[in-house]
């Protein structure tokens, strides 16, 4: 656990991005999570992604539910508004926030208990609605904050720290996201920042429901032999399908992986994602094939990671609702109130 305050002074030589911020400007409060917690690596990846994308921190709204994962928005983007809402209900709060102002970037941070157990309903419906958001599940298969109970993503047969073997089927969030219409679906590992940062960047750029399942080991309660969400297990079973290397118009992100075939994916808004494929038999723009691909590998005990699916023609909830371009929270009585003449006409029709 980190309890020493970070020095506020920044090194003057720290590189600034094009909007004038150093990477430190994207940090938040000191994390109160356990030393080595996978979640802190995810926070660091969010910081890196936002800095690299030249996003002004205050243009992001961070929303979360309850649990260790849901505490993390306090630990990144300290100049963004954050909302630690109700257990399992972040998606609805994020939906409302997004409706009120379509111009901000919405980052929903949740955990496997928060999203797969208590929050499975809201997770599902947020995906269905195509809300323009980055939805990150920090997935450790365990309830950390209440000390080690299984969550709904714990694999069948995996062992808890107390030696109990889980007999329930795991809930497959990637499978559900694909089934429910998410238009950007990725999985990564908190221990693989090089893979994770571009995936977060891609998700931020994507206009639609972007879901990233990040396996993030719980060092306190789920990092032992017999766990399928431990650092060791995930490193051994990680099967990356591709590397998201480039984003059009942005600086190249170098990856230290062997080059493979490069695929350009043009999105609805004209932005281009460039994928370096590592697996020849996976097409990330085919939803049905991706579902099969992920399931086949899961059956072999492999955790498939990378950008698993992207719908380049995705549109978001606001397009479905045909809302005005101006954020709803900026409309005034002039635009909203029909006034007395209209009311007189209504009265006349009611006599």
């Amino acid at each position, binding site marked *: 656990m980190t309890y020493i305050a970070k020095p506020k002074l920044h090194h003057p030589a720290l590189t600034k991005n094009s909007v004038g911020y150093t990477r430190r400007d994207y940090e938040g409060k000191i994390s109160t999570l356990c030393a080595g917690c996978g979640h802190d690596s995810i926070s660091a990846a969010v910081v890196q992604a936002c800095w690299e994308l030249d996003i002004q*921190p205050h243009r992001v709204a961070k929303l979360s539910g309850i649990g260790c994962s849901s505490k993390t928005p306090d630990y990144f983007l300290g100049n963004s508004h954050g909302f630690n809402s109700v257990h399992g209900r972040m998606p609805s709060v994020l939906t409302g926030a997004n409706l009120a102002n379509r111009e901000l970037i919405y980052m929903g941070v949740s955990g496997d208990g928060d999203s797969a157990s208590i929050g499975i309903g809201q997770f599902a419906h947020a995906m269905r609605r195509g809300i323009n958001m980055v939805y990150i599940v920090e997935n450790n298969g365990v309830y950390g904050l209440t000390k080690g109970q299984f969550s709904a993503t714990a694999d069948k047969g995996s062992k808890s720290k107390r030696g109990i073997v889980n007999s329930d089927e795991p809930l497959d969030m990637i499978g559900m996201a694909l089934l429910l219409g998410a238009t950007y679906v990725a999985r990564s590992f908190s221990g693989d920042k090089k893979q994770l940062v571009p995936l977060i960047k891609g998700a931020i750029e994507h206009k639609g429901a972007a879901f990233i399942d990040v396996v993030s080991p719980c060092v306190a309660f789920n990092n032992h032999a017999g766990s399928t969400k431990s650092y060791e297990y995930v490193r051994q079973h990680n099967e990356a399908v591709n590397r998201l290397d480039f984003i059009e118009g942005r600086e190249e992100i170098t990856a230290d992986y062997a080059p493979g075939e490069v695929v350009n994916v043009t999105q609805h808004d004209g932005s281009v994602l460039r994928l370096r494929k590592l697996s020849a038999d996976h097409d990330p723009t085919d939803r049905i094939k991706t579902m099969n691909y992920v399931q086949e590998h899961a059956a072999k005990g492999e955790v498939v990671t990378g950008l698993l699916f992207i719908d380049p023609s995705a549109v978001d909830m606001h397009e479905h609702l045909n809302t005005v371009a101006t954020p709803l929270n900026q409309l005034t009585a002039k*635009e909203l109130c029909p006034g007395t003449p209209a009311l007189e006409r209504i009265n006349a029709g009611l006599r």
Partner: protein
Amino acid sequence: MKQISAINDFVVKFANVNGSGSASANELFARAILRMGVPVSPRNIFPSNIQGLPTWYEVRVTESGYLGRRGGVDLMVAMNPQTWDKDVQEIQAGGYLFYDNSKPLPKSKFRDDINVIGMPLTEICNSTYSDPRQRQLFKNIIYVGALSALLDMDPAAIEKLFTEQYKGKEALLQSNFKALKLGRDYALQNLQCPLGIKVRRADNVGDKIFIDGNSAAALGAVYGGATVCAWYPITPSSSLAESFIGYCQRLRKEPDSGKARYAIIQGEDELASVGITIGAGWNGSRSFTTTSGPGISLMNEFIGLAYFAEIPVVLIDVQRGGPSTGMPTRTQQSDVLSCAYASHGDTKHVLLFPEDPKECFDMTAQAFDLAERLQTPVFVMTDLDIGMNTRLCAPFQWDDSKAYDRGKVMTYEALEAGADFGRYNDVDGDGIPYRTYPGTHPQLGAYFTRGTTKDRYARYSETGPDYVENVTRLLRKFETAKTMVPQPVLRQAKEPARYGALYYGSTSPAMQEALDVLAEQGIHVNAMRIRGFPFADEINEFIAAHPGVFVVEQNRDAQVKGMLVNEGQIDPKRLISVLHYDGTPITARFIVDHISKHIAAHTVVPIKTGRVSA
């Protein structure tokens, strides 16, 4: 045989099968009487079902404008064999039974003390129409035609309504004219017209409008500037959200683009609906949800968050009987306690009590100002009786010069000028802090929203003093709310009165009538209508000024009485409950009966005169 004789003062009840198209014919009948300048008060009594179950439509014709339910039936239009016996039983002695005599019924099915009017409706329909659906639908119009003759109504009023309704649909218009004439002519030629009860042209409707409370509240939300609505279907509130959709499509499109200046989401449940509402409120939109008691129960956890995190949201509760499989199509005022103190922890909420559609409009619009000014959930406590029945009320009014009160929102400019921003800092002493919208300023004004583990600058804190400071400030804020909610309305008796009566919401029309009836009986009662919670000081003063105060409510547990006792430290013995909770709207007869009996039982009768006085 006795025949009830009355002009413009009687009750007609239609007993139908739901799904038979009777609802629109019955409403046509009510509207036609209105067009003759005579106030009516119709009520739907319907099952939680779409087709095949009994449904009733009760129209009180009331020249004096008493819009509460009267009780008793003068003319029964018995169109449902399933409920025949009960319907016949309900008619007052000397009253009238109108029925379809296409098939003969045994004498035992009738009563001796009522007047029976048979008309072969099915026969007429079968000989006129070949299509089964037409036979069914026009049967309803045919009986309206017959009633117009029996009650001496002006057929031109009905024809004018048809003309308005079927503008541009000539074929439909003509076929309705035909059916109406068919019924009317048959009655004039074969039945004794008119009956002892009659409609006579009057001028008592004036500029009043005829609308249901749910539509009125929806329109109030449009005028009040709501941009986000999230809801989940539940009787009796669904039509509120659906009206909002309709009004927004008419009134809220951006002129050039046709794009929506609103966003409406049908949530997957009530939890999501209130969550969406809270998210939008947090982000600076005026947002609301509409539901009924079971929905409020589901929303409880979120309501507490909104209270402690101080997020403006409006919740419209169209009350009904509980629980979820309770009396969804019957009216009650039984959610008052569960809304006033909704959620876990120490919470209390602002409630508004509209009496009719006019106040549904006014108070819903006002609720958005209150929610943003007070940064808290605000509940509009309507009910099925107001919400789902068309009611005559004052026309809607709007002051175009009035700006929305967006409350204390710290702007980019204020932050830039160096304002000290503490999200939960009571700078003005009224308990209301400043808030910022997300995205306001690159470096200043951002904060992390959470429940109560925070200090006045929204920094994480679990310390006792910070907690106490925060929740004590919320009490100060509730005091501030007291002066902002709609204030009570006093109706002073014409003569000095020992007794007072408190009432609220949909009890209002029955109460007005009851007070008049009581006064005629020499029982004078001062009355005060509660319109908001927290209760205004005036309500406590009213109680203090009377040795006994009736509290008239439509719930079993005297919910508002309990709140008055707790919040005002009032001796419960001073408050006398008058409680009506069978799911039907309260009547003046019920109130008069309870109040007069209580007063009679507690009045000392001087031996010399023997005269009972109040």
